[in-house]
């Protein structure tokens, strides 16, 4: 098809429309150029004007994020954001979606997603030291779900394991709204020196432009435009050539790139991600305010006869574009040769503000940089859904008349109440020898053995609660941030920054745009309250099939710091004679809770607005608790409320325990046990420590209640008003939890 059209053939409106450009965009281009684009140029516009590359529907909203702070070395706009962590050290991190490719080919889609985000990070000059993955799958009953789960988990694991970047935390969730639109969001964090940040900028007239890494094939031509369009069920067979990841080459590219940077041989660098050579060359010229001349015949290829169009749009993996001084080309070549990688000068930085590309002696692309990098923004209609009131109706009477045992059963048989071991044990979570607490804990903790000046650790977690987001995207946005912060808090960390991956349906749907705007507001509110900047992120629209969008899914990845040598709290019980306290309100809202969804077979209720200032106080309280050096276990309360949180602490206990919980006098049992409003944290400690802990908690202005004990009964018992209202052997509850996801992996 496209390959047969000559690169210099004048592109008509019809061709433009068929490749995804809108009529207005086509006319805009013709007007500015004072001529219609030729076919190769059309390819450039289709890719760069796609939602994925241009952020045309989202940009104006993203500007509302707080992006500044004393630690911010690099905010949004580069390959990854960078934060100062002291003593000359910094961390670079970002999150990216690879949703559509992972549906088409789960293993390769997920693997190349991980590869892409790693390149974004080491492009900045940072050595990747940790990854996270957020995986949202469809109904487990759908026949293809198990193979998608297996493929994605294998792909994430394989790529990270092979490159040697530990996957230390994440989220795995099942909901029917993701059935034909699974989400695969990958996060990577790297460590670097604060004054050795590399940027994607093509500066220095006359400097050579060097292509390094794998050779180019026809892989994924038009991947960027694909991820910007909805699926239709019939369209499932209409696939571009799938991109195949090669983590081995990635590892070599990582080492060679860092070595070349260390040797001072690189001026600017950018990975070839979505829209490959096109986006990397135009963006690098844009950032530097320069022009480029590129000789496409010099691009190393894997297959014969690639057209300029294909060379420009190929998404072959594990490739980078860099700019160096002419006298450093030899040295660069030597390093890349050492690592058995190609390096080839394919062009140079030139005066003027345009990119000219030549192929087989013909000038095939001659475009002003800004025309390509500053596409017309889309002004999307925004409208709140009309049925919010219905969504918010929660039949309290029916809930009250449902027997307690049925409610408990409803929550603990939820498919998402599961031991993540089947997933996370396929990931090397320890390579690099920094992982102190990992894929079973509330937040991952990495000790930075590289920082010799002081003892400092990083804490990481990524989170999103799509049920709440669907009921109230603003509250959902707040909770994505607050839940991460509370997970980090259990390890006593101070949050220092976030990245996000905003997964939504079609921006052409006004309700989706409303969800988007609300979620951005919610994230911004929470970030302001906690004083954490957004330093990078990614938007993924068009996650819908046949007009059915996914629930709004603004995933947040948060990074925190833990200063000092004091021990970390545990996240599970560690003895059979502990007292259990609840930090935070004794009752919490049921709107958007797992209980409501399970009992009413749909998401319902109005989620409580999170008291963000209490979240902030809670985070600080937990930092002080850690410094108090008291042995304790902390676990945040989220899905399934106090019930799930307490059971998880028991299931993960290293010693056999029994668990007894008691509803405090006067509290509503449902809201105490199943409520999911934030912030609430369970704390377990030796009874003799209560006085000290309680006084610290109340001084922080946070409610404190003793709600239970551990014992050696190996049973779970619930009391209300002195009477025992529920009793079960813990082992009988644990087994289904442990085995829930087993069937997916057989």
């Amino acid at each position, binding site marked *: 098809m496209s390959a047969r059209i000559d690169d210099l053939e004048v592109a008509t409106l019809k061709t433009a429309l068929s490749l995804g450009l809108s009529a207005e965009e086509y006319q805009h281009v013709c007007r500015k150029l004072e001529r219609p684009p030729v076919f190769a140029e059309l390819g450039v516009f289709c890719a760069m004007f796609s939602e994925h590359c241009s952020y045309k529907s989202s940009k104006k909203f993203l500007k509302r994020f707080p992006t500044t702070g004393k630690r911010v070395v690099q905010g949004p706009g580069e390959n990854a954001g960078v934060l100062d962590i002291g003593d000359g050290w910094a961390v670079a991190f970002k999150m990216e979606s690879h949703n559509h490719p992972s549906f088409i080919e789960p293993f390769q889609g997920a693997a190349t997603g991980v590869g892409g985000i790693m390149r974004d990070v080491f492009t900045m000059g940072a050595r990747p030291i940790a990854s996270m993955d957020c995986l949202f799958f469809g109904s487990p009953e759908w026949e293809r779900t198990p193979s998608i789960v297996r493929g994605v988990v*294998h792909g994430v*694991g*394989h790529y990270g*394991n*092979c*490159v*040697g970047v530990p996957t230390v935390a994440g989220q795995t969730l099942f909901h029917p709204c993701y059935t034909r639109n699974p989400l695969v969001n990958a996060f990577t964090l790297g460590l670097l020196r604060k004054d050795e940040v590399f940027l994607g900028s093509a500066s220095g007239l006359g400097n050579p432009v060097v292509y390094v890494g794998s050779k180019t094939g026809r892989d994924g031509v038009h991947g960027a435009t694909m991820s910007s369009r909805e699926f239709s069920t019939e369209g499932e067979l209409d696939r571009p050539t799938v991109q195949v990841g*090669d*983590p*081995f*080459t990635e*590892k*070599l590219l990582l080492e060679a790139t860092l070595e070349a940077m260390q040797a001072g041989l690189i001026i600017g660098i950018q990975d070839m991600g979505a829209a490959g050579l096109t986006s990397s060359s135009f963006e690098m010229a844009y950032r530097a305010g320069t022009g480029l001349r590129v000789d496409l015949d010099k691009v190393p290829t894997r297959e014969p006869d690639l057209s300029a169009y294909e060379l420009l749009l190929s998404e072959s993996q594990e490739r980078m574009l860099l700019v160096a001084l002419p006298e450093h080309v030899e040295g660069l070549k030597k390093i890349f040769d*050492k*690592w*058995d990688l190609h390096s080839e000068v394919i062009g140079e930085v030139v005066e003027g503000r345009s990119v000219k590309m030549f192929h087989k002696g013909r000038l095939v692309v001659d475009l002003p940089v800004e025309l390509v990098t500053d596409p017309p923004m889309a002004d999307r209609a925004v409208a709140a859904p009309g049925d919010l009131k219905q969504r918010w109706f929660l039949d309290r009477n029916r809930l009250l008349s449902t027997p307690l045992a049925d409610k408990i059963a409803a929550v603990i048989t939820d498919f998402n109440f599961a031991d993540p071991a089947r997933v996370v*044990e*396929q*990931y*090397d*979570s*320890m*390579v*690099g*020898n*920094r*992982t*102190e607490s990992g894929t079973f804990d509330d937040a991952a903790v990495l*000790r930075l*053995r590289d920082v010799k000046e002081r003892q400092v650790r990083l804490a990481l977690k990524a989170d999103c609660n799509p049920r709440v987001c669907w009921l109230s995207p603003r509250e959902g946005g707040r909770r994505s941030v607050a839940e991460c912060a509370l997970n980090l808090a259990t390890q006593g960390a101070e949050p220092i920054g976030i990245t996000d991956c905003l997964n939504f349906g079609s921006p052409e749907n006004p309700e989706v745009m409303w969800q988007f705007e609300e979620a951005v507001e919610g994230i911004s509110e929470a970030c302001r309250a906690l004083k954490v900047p957004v330093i990078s992120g990614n938007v993924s629209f068009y996650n819908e099939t046949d007009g059915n969008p996914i629930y709004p899914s603004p995933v947040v990845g948060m990074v925190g710091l833990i200063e000092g040598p004091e021990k970390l709290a545990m996240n599970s019980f560690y003895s059979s004679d502990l007292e259990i306290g609840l930090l935070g309100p004794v009752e919490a809202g049921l709107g958007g809770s797992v209980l409501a969804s399970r009992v009413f077979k749909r998401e319902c209720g109005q989620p409580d607005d999170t008291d963000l200032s209490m979240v902030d106080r809670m985070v600080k309280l937990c930092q002080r608790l850690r410094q108090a050096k008291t042995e304790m276990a902390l676990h945040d309360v989220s899905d399934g409320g106090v019930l799930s949180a307490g059971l998880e602490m028991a299931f993960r206990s290293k010693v056999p325990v029994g668990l007894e919980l008691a509803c405090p006098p006067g509290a509503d049992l449902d809201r105490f046990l199943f409520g999911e409003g934030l912030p609430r944290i369970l704390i377990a400690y030796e009874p003799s420590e209560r006085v000290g802990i309680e006084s610290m908690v109340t001084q922080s202005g946070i409610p404190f209640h003793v709600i239970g004990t551990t014992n050696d009964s190996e049973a779970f018992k619930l009391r209300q008003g002195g009477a025992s209202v529920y009793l079960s052997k813990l082992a009988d509850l644990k087994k289904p939890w442990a085995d829930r996801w087993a069937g997916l*992996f057989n």
Partner: protein
Amino acid sequence: MNTAVVTFPGSNCDDDARDTLARVMECSVKAVWHKDRLSFSDFDLVVLPGGFSYGDYLRCGAMASLSPVMEGIKEFAAKGGRVLGICNGFQILCEAGLLPGALTINAGQKFICKDVSLKVENSVAPWTCEWKVAEKAVFPIAHGDGRYWIDEAGLAKLKSQNQILFTYLENPNGSTGDIAGIRNEQGNVFGLMPHPERASELRSRDGLKLWKSIRSLGKVAS
């Protein structure tokens, strides 16, 4: 103690091994590139680290076993030099014929990363003399191809010559005889799938006993 850690293309636990040896065990550590042709005669220990040399393509460790550096290592081992292979390093040693048997895909066909309990089968110098026989050690594993395979005659020989140093208390991967780590007949080459360098500061500290065993014997006469 003078140690060398070899980096093959795709090795990714080389830095962990170097860091543990240098910072935790205070050894001098030389980073060796797989294309280097060295004699190694100055070293008390050469470590082949974990990772995915050559992407684990074809068979784990197969391509790396033909690297230029392996000639020097074979000579060094033949003269009694101590060689330790961890995870991918163990696979490379088997592929190179420096250790008997072979490592192949886990019986469950999945990559497994978790702490496992090992039993010390033999307390021998220079690898396991800090432990008593039958003592337990907890090390993490992280591999997809860690199933050790050897035929019956080979297994009988390993047993009779006290070559099996560690076995799994709960076999995670289907290894013959629950084998987690073996040494060669001469006793100077040792390979194991679990990661002692990951159990030297974080998680358990059982890995320290391995380094201490090696260090307590000082330099080998060669």
